[in-house]
């Protein structure tokens, strides 16, 4: 663990990733202290300063009702990160167990579980989430639910592939010979060998979840105003291009910075852990 952190901090690119992610995470946690206008995350109106470009008062300009964009972006990071953590905290274990048992047990279990996974995987990810949000009320909880439902099959597929090749390894045979139970072999013997790939995928997925969630709210199917969300901020601002460019450019760059940071770390982890699919 310690060795891994040292390697991460030595490489300039992964160092950049660590810095970007730290910035995003810290500003989300301490938003109340960093944001110049903390109350602007809600339904505040300030018509004296509405729709202004970047100034020394509002570093990223103000929106159509005069709220400080910089403050709103910082609070939007909070929503994105919470969503990402919750989605991965549910989707990863579910997908891992499905893939693990399908891959190790084989036979009918494998056929049923993997065909089920295929069904989910054959609807383009965003389309499934959009369809679910179409019938659900657009709230943060439901957005998390929709993204989780589309996310677990990817872990199932990843772990399934590893488990299927591990099942032929000598150590599994050895465990079977001494009479270890299926559950013991799956969880204690095979699972540890899947962990590097799972951890790498989770880091890269943090960025993807942020992308998908912001895409949903971009279409008006995610978190609703006045709660600040990067996707809905871009959607709202896009109607006022090119004059009020700051309305779209800054929230767009905010997404780019957060996702880029997670991707840089994920890439470095993949190289360190040697966890290619």
């Amino acid at each position, binding site marked *: 663990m310690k060795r891994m952190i040292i390697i991460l901090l030595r490489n300039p690119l992964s160092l950049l990733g660590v810095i970007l992610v730290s910035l995003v995470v810290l500003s989300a946690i301490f938003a109340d202290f960093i944001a110049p206008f903390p109350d602007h995350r809600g339904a505040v109106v300030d018509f004296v300063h509405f729709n202004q470009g970047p100034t020394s008062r509002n570093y990223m300009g103000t929106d159509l009702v005069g709220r400080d964009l910089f403050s709103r972006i910082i609070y939007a990071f909070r929503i994105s990160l919470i969503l990402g953590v919750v989605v991965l905290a549910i989707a990863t274990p579910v997908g891992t167990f499905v893939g693990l048992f399908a891959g190790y047990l084989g036979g009918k279990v494998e056929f049923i579980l993997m065909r089920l996974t295929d069904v989910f995987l054959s*609807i383009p990810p965003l*389309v499934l989430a959009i369809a679910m949000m179409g*019938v659900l009320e657009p709230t943060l909880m439901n957005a998390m639910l929709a993204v989780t439902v589309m996310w677990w099959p990817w872990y199932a597929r990843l772990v399934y592939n590893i488990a299927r090749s591990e099942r032929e390894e000598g150590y599994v045979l050895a465990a079977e010979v001494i009479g270890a139970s299926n559950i013991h072999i799956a969880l204690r013997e095979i699972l540890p060998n899947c962990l590097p790939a799972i951890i790498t995928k989770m880091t890269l997925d943090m960025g993807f979840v942020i992308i998908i969630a912001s895409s949903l709210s971009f*279409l008006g199917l995610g978190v609703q105003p006045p709660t600040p969300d990067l996707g809905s901020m871009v959607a709202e601002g896009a109607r006022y*291009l090119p004059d009020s460019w700051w309305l*779209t450019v800054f929230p767009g760059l905010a997404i*780019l910075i957060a996702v880029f940071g997670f991707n840089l770390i994920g890439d470095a982890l993949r190289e360190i852990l040697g966890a290619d699919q």
Partner: protein
Amino acid sequence: MLPVLHLLARRLGISLIVLVGVSMLIFGIARVIPGDPARIALGPNATVEQVTNLREELHLNDSIVVQYGYFLADLLKGELGISLYTNRPVTTDIAQFLPATLELVIFAGILMVGIGLPLGIASARYRGRWPDHVIRLVSLLGVSAPSFVWAVILMLLFAFYLPIFPIAGRIADTYEITRVTGFLLIDTLLAGNFSAFGDALRHIILPAFALAVSGIGQAARLTRANMVETYDKPYIEMAHAFGFSARRIANKFAFKPSMIPSLTIIGLDFAAMLGNAFLVEAVFAWPGLSRYGVAVILRKDLNAIIGTVLIISATFLIVNLIVDLMIALLNPRIRYSQRGST
């Protein structure tokens, strides 16, 4: 050739099972919606009698299994019901809007392969030197933002600040093109109207590129990773020893085996683009299926939602089938043995 046909039949069978599964899933999602579909369809002014009649007509009083049976029977007749949004059969709507989306996605797919693969090849060939670093950084940036962000940025740069490309739509209103295939780039050529073709081409470039950016990044990253792996194989060393040029080794010996894992992911990226088309079409006011999809979703138009998702999934399965076939043709080991269930 026979094993390939066998493979095709097997994959086709699995795809059909999966498609039935998809229809169940979507049907299930659409039926757990709170509220009465008949009431939603008729609006708040309908009488109780009208609602009761429509419930009877839509088989809403039967169990969900029976309802699904009716739905499947209609589907086999090629009927997907009436859209509440346009008041037309859903199949008519889809036939009208699908070509625009397919044209956009296919064009973006060509950009993805045409730009992403060469970038990946160059990156692997100059591994560890500056072109490699630049390409890796750019392609990582490419996958780090949703396509609507790229769409907005490209629009700002190349439609507003440098007015090279049009801002929205598929073609200028002044052109009247008879619809043959629904693909404007083809229809304009069939009509022999080259200025209309040029105009359609100018319209498609920005949205297609916005849609392709993350796919280009993905393709480049993947191709690089696979080629770097191939470069370490002994037969590449032998090719060096035989004195083949670096370019020939890159393009011939290292590229082909590296393509096989890349192709699967490219198929998945194509699927992602079918979804991301929802975002890009919204920015560029592209009159495609995705814009229709968002419209019907916001109106909770169930028939249209089910139809749209089904047709997108079917398209996706067809693409994957083609990808699998290409892999089988490229890889002799798979060509002559059975590919596993992956």
